[in-house]
């Protein structure tokens, strides 16, 4: 048994905790979320590079609300989402404990939002090199090429909403796509409606997206839609110095304003 498994076992045996949300080995060497309730199952837990999924989405699940105190094994994506969810009052201080990992692999216990916030401050918040390169590739295109690029991508979207379902910040019980009076977003998955859906999704995540990339990872058709929310995240930082997932009490960029906000396009 490794550290994590031992720790999990102790926590469950102590009787103070009723559920551990973490990762286990899934199909073909993929990691996947797991829910451990019994100490004897603690050995299923893993934590390695394959565990890059953001699992904060489970924290507000109805099915675990009644559970006794919970523990979540969190990678840096999950940690940032927890901070953002805390800022938006979707999770509650003291409701769960976080097990994070130091660079040397040591387990760090984080019990309060303040501790989580402090720990998250030590993490890197930008895009990875590969992600930044993808952004640059698109930004360097001509306007026509950008349009062609996205038109092609949007044409593939089948509107399965896996991107929405896997994003921790998409927690609205009724999404705008489900509003039909008026019908903002068409239900059929044609390119125009898909474009509107993705613009809407990105706009609703402005100042809230923690750039975890989970939406893109979830897409069965491999649309690089995370780049759209990265774009609004980067702009929120540039224009408003707002970085989601860094502060447990910040208002998100589009919910507030400053009289001195500066633009150069309004006549």
């Amino acid at each position, binding site marked *: 048994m490794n550290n994590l498994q031992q720790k999990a076992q102790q926590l469950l045996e102590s009787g103070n905790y009723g559920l551990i949300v973490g990762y286990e080995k*899934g*199909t*073909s060497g*993929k990691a*996947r*979320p*797991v*829910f451990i309730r019994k100490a004897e199952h603690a050995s299923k837990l893993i934590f390695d590079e394959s565990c890059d*999924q953001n699992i904060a*989405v489970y924290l507000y699940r*109805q*099915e675990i609300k009644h559970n006794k105190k919970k523990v979540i094994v969190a990678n840096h994506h999950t940690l940032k989402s927890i901070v953002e969810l805390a800022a938006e009052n979707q999770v509650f201080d003291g409701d769960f404990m976080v097990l994070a990992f130091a660079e040397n692999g040591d387990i760090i216990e984080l019990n309060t939002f303040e501790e989580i916030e402090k720990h998250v401050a030590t993490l890197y918040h930008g895009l990875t090199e590969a992600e930044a390169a993808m952004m640059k590739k698109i930004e360097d295109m001509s306007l026509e090429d950008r349009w062609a690029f996205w038109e*092609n*991508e949007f044409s*593939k979207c*089948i*509107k*399965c*909403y*896996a991107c*929405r*379902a*896997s994003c921790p910040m998409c927690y609205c019980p*009724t999404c705008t796509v*489900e509003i039909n009076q008026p019908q903002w977003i*068409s*239900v*059929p*998955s*044609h390119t125009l409606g898909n474009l509107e859906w993705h613009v809407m999704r990105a706009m609703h995540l402005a100042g809230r997206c923690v750039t975890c990339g*989970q939406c893109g*990872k*979830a897409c*069965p*058709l*491999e649309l690089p839609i995370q780049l759209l929310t990265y774009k609004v995240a980067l702009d929120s930082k540039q224009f408003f110095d707002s970085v989601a997932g860094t502060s447990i009490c910040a208002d998100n960029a589009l919910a507030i304003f400053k009289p001195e906000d500066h633009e150069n396009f309004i006549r």
Partner: protein
Amino acid sequence: MERKLLTKDSYRSLITKLIGQNYQVVAPVKKDTMIDFLKISSFDEITEDYIVTVSSAKTVAFPRNEKLFDYEKQNKKLTQQDFDFDSIPQSVLIGVRPCDAFGFHSLSSIFCWDSIDKIYTTRLERTTIIGLSCNKADDYCFCTSAKGSPGSTAGSDILLTKMTDGNYIAEIVTEKGAKLVADFSDLFTADGGADKESLLAKVAANFSVDDVLAKINSKFEDEAFWTEQAMRCIGCGACAYVCPTCACFDIQDESHGGKGHRVRCWDSCGLSLFTLHTSGHNPRENQGQRWRQRLMHKFSYMPDRLNTIGCVGCGRCSRACPVDMNIAEHCMSIIEN
């Protein structure tokens, strides 16, 4: 069943001629990062480098969006333009894996259950399915547990099996297949008698779907079991949308002013609002109940009412699932629990 030889060159000419004769030829194509069924305009677009495509072949008979009719309202007068059956092209669907081909059987049983869905059936009637046996499989494949096999002919009109020299064994399965072979008889030559079995992928049968069928009804009321099974599931539509046998759809009107059309588009029982009533009541209010519905539909309701299983073991849903809900595993845990 009649067997012929189709050399790789003849295969190329066959496809080229079909395209030349204005057949709509739909084949696995590598588009950007993934391989999916797309309309092709040349043989070279086809790829064989896939286990299964991301989406299933069902799009040919049950497209993700389908316009059912147009309407226009002018000066209080309503005119309607019905579905134009002539617009359905003669199609040849190639590179279809045996699991996918068999999927049409399940799909048809739904679309022809009490009333016949004429659009679906016409599309399928005008489609000749040229299957392609599997020479490789992955950890998600479980056709052999679901009454299929990597070389099964069921569902295909012609089944090709690629030999080591790059030529194909062509098994002529149906009359439709025979007709196509007759139309291009010069391309199909005498079979050399190669051993098909040795060319196929090996897919271990880890369970028998009959055991799932036998057990699943008794699990219906075990709420805790389903809740636990569905804990990971985040309730998207990915699994249903890529599944060759999932048939749920939504009917929507898309209109601009007085003009519009009615569209049928995919839907999924995994989505939380799927069963939401106007009253506000939702009979399947949690993901456990929705996941149960998905499995019950495939392994109980369809076998009971339609005499077919609703899963062909292609593993697509599990590959597409963002949280690795592996349906084969779930089947096994139904048997074991």
